[in-house]
C-alpha cells in the first residue's frame, strides 16, 4: 500500500489533492500547523475512502522540525513513497518592501524552508529505494520578477530551480520530481485579491497534478494555458518589461 506525505495540508490545493489521492487508494499523512484543525477533513476522507489518514504537526519556520522529519514520519506512520510540498506564504509585497520580518517570512517559507524540506525528503526517498516521487508546488510568479510580487516570485523562482536541480540529481533513481506552476487558483490565499483572471478551481488543479505525476511530467503549468502566457511574459525584453506595470 502506498502512502503520501502532504506538507501544508490546510491549503485548498493540498486538500483537493489529498481527496484525489485517497480516492485512488493512497494512505495519507497530512502535515500542517495546528494540524488538529484538520481533523474534520481527515474524518471525512477516512469515512469516504476507507484509507488511513494521519495528522502531523508541522511548522516549517520552527527550528528542528525539518531535520529527521522523514524518518520520524516513517517511524510513526509507516514508510511513504510520495512527498508533496504545498505550503507557501503569499505575503504582502508592499509590506515586504519596508518590513524585514515580512520579507524574511516570505523567503523562508517559500524558498529556504521549502528547499530544506525537499532535501530532507529526497534523501529519505533515495535512501529507501524503490519508486517514489516528490511534487513541489511552485508558482507562475516564479517565472519572472514583477514589482507587484517579486519577493514571493523570487522565492518561488528559487524553489523551481531547486526542484529542477533535484530532478537532475534523481534522474537516475526511481524517484520522480514534478514541479507544479499553478496560475491563479480560487483558494483562501487569493480570496479578495484584486486583478485576478482565469481563476481555476483547486479540484481542477489537483486533477492536473495527479495526471501529470502519473505521466511522469517534469514541469506542469496548470491550467495548461499558463505555459504560453508565461512564455510570452518571459520573452518580453527587459528594457520594455521594466517599464510595465504587471
Amino acid at each position, binding site marked *: 500500500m502506498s502512502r503520501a506525505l502532504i506538507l501544508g495540508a*490546510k491549503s485548498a490545493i493540498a486538500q483537493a489533492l489529498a481527496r484525489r489521492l485517497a480516492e485512488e487508494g493512497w494512505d495519507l499523512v497530512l502535515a500542517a500547523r495546528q494540524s488538529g*484543525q484538520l481533523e*474534520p477533513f481527515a*474524518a471525512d476522507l477516512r*469515512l*469516504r475512502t476507507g484509507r488511513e489518514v494521519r495528522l502531523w504537526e508541522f511548522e516549517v519556520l520552527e527550528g528542528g522540525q525539518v531535520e529527521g522529519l522523514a524518518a520520524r514520519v516513517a517511524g510513526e506512520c509507516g514508510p511513504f513513497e510520495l512527498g508533496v510540498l504545498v505550503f507557501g506564504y503569499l505575503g504582502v509585497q508592499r509590506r515586504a518592501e519596508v518590513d524585514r520580518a515580512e520579507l524574511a517570512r516570505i523567503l523562508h517559507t517559500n524558498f529556504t524552508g521549502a528547499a530544506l524540506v525537499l532535501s530532507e525528503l529526497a534523501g529519505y526517498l533515495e535512501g529507501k529505494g524503490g519508486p517514489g516521487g516528490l511534487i513541489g508546488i511552485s508558482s507562475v510568479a516564479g517565472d519572472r520578477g514583477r514589482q507587484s510580487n517579486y519577493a514571493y516570485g523570487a522565492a518561488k523562482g528559487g524553489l523551481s530551480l531547486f526542484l529542477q536541480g533535484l530532478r537532475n540529481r534523481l534522474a537516475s533513481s526511481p524517484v520522480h520530481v514534478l514541479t507544479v506552476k499553478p496560475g491563479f487558483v480560487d483558494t*483562501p490565499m487569493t480570496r*479578495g485579491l484584486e486583478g485576478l483572471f482565469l481563476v481555476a478551481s483547486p479540484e481542477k488543479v489537483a486533477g492536473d497534478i495527479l495526471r501529470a505525476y502519473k505521466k511522469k511530467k517534469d514541469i506542469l503549468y496548470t491550467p495548461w494555458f499558463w505555459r504560453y502566457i508565461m512564455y510570452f511574459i518571459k520573452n518580453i525584453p527587459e528594457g520594455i518589461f521594466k517599464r510595465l506595470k504587471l
Partner: protein
Amino acid sequence: METTPTAGWGLYPVVEARIDHPRHPGELIGLAQSGQPHLAQGACRSYGDACLYERVVSTLPLRHLLEFDPAQGRLRAQAGITLDSLLRFCVPRGFFPPVTPGTKFPTLGGCIAADVHGKNHHRQGTLGRFVEELEMVLADGSQVRCSRREHPELFRATLGGMGLTGFIYAATLRLKPIESSYISVRTVRTRDFAEACQLMVETRDEYLYSVAWIDCLARGRGLGRSLVMLGNHAPARGDEPLKLHSCRQRPVPFNFPEIFLNPWSMRAFNTLIYRHQWRRERQRLVHYDPYFYPLDALYRWNRIYGRRGFLQYQFAIPFAGGLELMREILGHIAAQGAGSFLAVLKTFGPEDEGVLSFPLPGYTLALDFPLRGGGIIRFLRQLNRLVAGAGGRVYLAKDAILEEEDFARMYPRLEEFRRIKRQYDPHNQFRSCLADRLGLR
C-alpha cells in the same frame, strides 16, 4: 472589507454582503464572540431573503462528514455539507436522506434551519424528525449540544428557526436504509384539481412519496389539470442497484430575455408537459435523481426567469375547506395570467416539532412568479391575506414579500419562538433580512 452582491435562488432581492469563511469551529466561535450581528449562510438555495444579511458567515468551508454508524444509519456531519455531497457518501452504502427537498444543492444546515419537507411529509414529517442532535455555537461563543433531551427548547426553536438562534456547527441525522437507488413511480393524469387532491389523499398509505404537477394556466374545465406522481423506494434489481447520480449539469448560460417567458409560451409549455403522457396511468422505475431533483439537471435554472428574478410562492392550508380555497386561488392566478410553468401540489401530515416549522396538516401548493414590476408583489400580498384568513401559512424559506402582520397570523407559536430566541440570543446577534422584515427578534 469588500462586499459581494448576494441573492437567494429567486435572484430577488440582492443584498451587498460582507462574507466570512470560517474553516474550523474555533473561527466560528471567534465570529460569534465578535458581537457583530450576522447570519450563517449556506448554499443560498432558499428563494427570497431568508439567507441574506449585510454580514454573513459562510458555512460552505465546514462541509465534512464526521462520523458514521452503518448499523444505526446514524451520520454526524458539519452543517455546510450539501445534500449532493451527502448522497455521494450514503447512496453507495445503501442509505438515503430521510427527507429531501426538490434540489440536492442546499446545505444540511440550511435544510435544518428551514426544517425542509419532501414528498413524504404526509407519512414521515420534516427533516427535523430525523435530526437527533445539533452542535451549536451560541451568541456568546459557547458551544452547546442540543437535542430532545438537552436544551430541548433551543433544539425545537432551531429546527425551522431560519438560523436565528445560533450557528449550527454540526448535526447528527438518522438516514433511511434503501435497497436500490430507484423509485418505482406511478404517474396518473387527472382532469382537474379535485381529482388530483382526491387521488393523493386516497393513496396516502400506499405510497411514501406523492406530488402533483398542476397546470394552473389552463382555464375553465381544465382548471388544475395535473400529473400525480406516486412513488416508493424500489427493491434491488439489476447490476447496479445503488447507482449514484451523475455530476453533469446542462448550463443555462445567461439570464433569459424576459420576452421568452410570456403567458403564451408558458401555456404552451404546460400543455406539452400535460400531453406528454398519453395514457391515463403509467408505472415505471425512475432513478432518484430525476425523480427528486428534476431541475438540478439544469445548472442555474433560476436564470430562465430573467435578470429581475422571480418569487416562489408556497403556502399550506388545512384540509377542511382547502380544496375550495385552492380553487379560488388558482382562479385568481389564472385570471392574473401571471402564473408559472407549473405548480407543485403536495399533502402534509401532522405538524412538526419545530416552533416555526412550515407544514400543517393539509394541502401545500408552490408556484413561481417572474418578477415584472410591483403588480405581482401586491397580488401575492392579497393572496397572503386569503391564506392567513383560512388558517394557512406561507413557507419562509421561499418568501421575500410577506408582511409582519400576516406573518403573525400565520405562525401562532411566534411568541414562543421570540421567547426562546431572547433567551439564547439576548442581543439579537443572529439576524437576516427576512427576520428584520418580519420582526423576528
